[in-house]
């Protein structure tokens, strides 16, 4: 796995279609960092630390209001893009101080996924991300495994899937169905696997992939946790 640093550090946090413009907020994780994922009304994806700077309540309890995120606790609003606080309802006449700002992360949309980079100096997203999932493939499911991402990758290797250095995707057959898997290091002992396939939704091949995914998780979680 040489020369994969950029790809490896762009984390596939969620399926792009799960975030609707100006609507919902999705809880995300990457390397232990909790994220609030949402889309402004204009469609631009946002990945923020899941914590209001005022009293540390999770942003995922809040709501999207146009191109702003509103905290559930005191209604403070923050602008998409910059994360800058724009409104403190307790003091309607006061301009929100410039130092009140949500922590934002770099986010890219490619291959039907949202990718997040945790570094404040995130490089531009590599163009190879667009090839992580072949065009025209269908989303199967996101599998959660109570195991490290390393343990998940080891299990992929044992199943004979091959790792693509450029995109960070594992490809091969699971349950006889062609599949592509993106592994997310969510927390030290929590990994997500986003599974895609060329099988049609509802087809027997897709059902076989679902069954193989459940079996895969069973195998991963049955392994003893390294102390």
């Amino acid at each position, binding site marked *: 796995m040489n020369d994969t640093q950029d790809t490896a550090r762009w984390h596939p946090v969620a399926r792009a279609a799960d975030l609707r413009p100006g609507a919902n907020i999705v809880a995300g994780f990457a390397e232990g960092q909790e994220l609030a994922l949402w889309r402004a009304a204009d469609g631009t994806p946002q990945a923020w630390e899941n914590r209001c*700077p005022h*009293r*540390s*309540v999770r942003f995922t*309890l809040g709501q999207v209001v146009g191109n702003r995120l509103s905290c*559930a*606790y005191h209604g403070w609003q923050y602008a998409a893009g910059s994360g800058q606080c724009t409104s403190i*309802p*307790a003091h309607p006449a006061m301009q929100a101080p410039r130092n009140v700002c949500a922590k934002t992360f770099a986010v890219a949309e490619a291959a039907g996924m949202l990718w997040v980079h945790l570094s404040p100096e995130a490089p531009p997203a590599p163009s190879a991300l667009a090839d992580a999932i072949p065009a025209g493939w269908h989303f199967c499911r996101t599998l959660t495994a109570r195991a490290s991402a390393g343990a998940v990758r080891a299990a992929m290797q044992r199943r004979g899937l091959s790792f693509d250095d450029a995109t960070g995707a594992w490809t091969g057959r699971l349950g006889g169905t062609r599949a592509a898997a993106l592994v997310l290091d969510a927390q030290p002992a929590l990994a997500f696997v986003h599974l895609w396939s060329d099988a049609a939704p509802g087809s027997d091949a897709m059902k076989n992939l679902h069954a193989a995914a459940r079996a895969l998780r069973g195998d991963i979680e049955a392994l003893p946790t390294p102390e």
Partner: protein
Amino acid sequence: MKDTMPFATDDPNMLDDWLVAGAATPEPRTTRLLGETVRLWSDADGTPQCRLGEQPLAVQSRYGHFWVCPSGRPARPLFDFPEYGEPGRRAIDCSGIGVAVSGLRVIENFLDMAHFPFVHADYLGKVPHTEVAQYQVNIESATGEIWATDCRFWQPRASAAHDLGSEVFYKYRVMQPFSAMLYKSSSRAGELDAIGIFLQPVDEERVIAHTLLACYDDVSTDAELIAFQQTIFGQDKPILENHAFKRMPLEGRAETPTRGDTSSVTYRRWLRERGMRFGTRAAA
């Protein structure tokens, strides 16, 4: 005795104070306090008893509740609650509700009016009436208690008799790090209802919140008054349990207050000055 104490903290702010341990009932029961299980009951003559294993702990029964001093060396007497049992007032125990967060977060929430229109929409507030007007916060020298006065907030249903919204007046009082009271306009002219919140510290990130009313109300049943308080608390609970840090930071820049957070800022400073460690988060 102090050296062998098994409790989950050595913070004298908790060990040397009176901690609520639930309603004072004669039947023996067990409950959790500072990471330990204690047994409580009242003797036939009403004397309260508390044991940690075989070891007796200092306990008193006041305001319908047991109060335990873990070290047996209370730094000060239990606070006064003169409205409890005052003629004409109804004293109603609204029971205890578990909350998975530091008790300091619960008290700070109790002192806060700015969240009314968002967390208690249509009950204690309503957008666009979101403004928190300036109020006074003082520390009373005789008792060391925090008092917030001249607090007022627009409420959609100020009383059962009024459909229209109006300004309601509040006073707040913090007696201990884990106990506070509020006083607000009542149905009786010139009198204030009193609501106490007493937090039983289960551990640094868990409390049982006991709520007690001493109010004027000739209309509502006990069940209605309890249901209202539990509805309000049920709206706060998911917010309180979703602080990204369950413990409260007293220093540093992890959290940014605004102008109307005077009560909260004073409470945090008051905790800092007394060296509070239990339920706090170290500065990053």
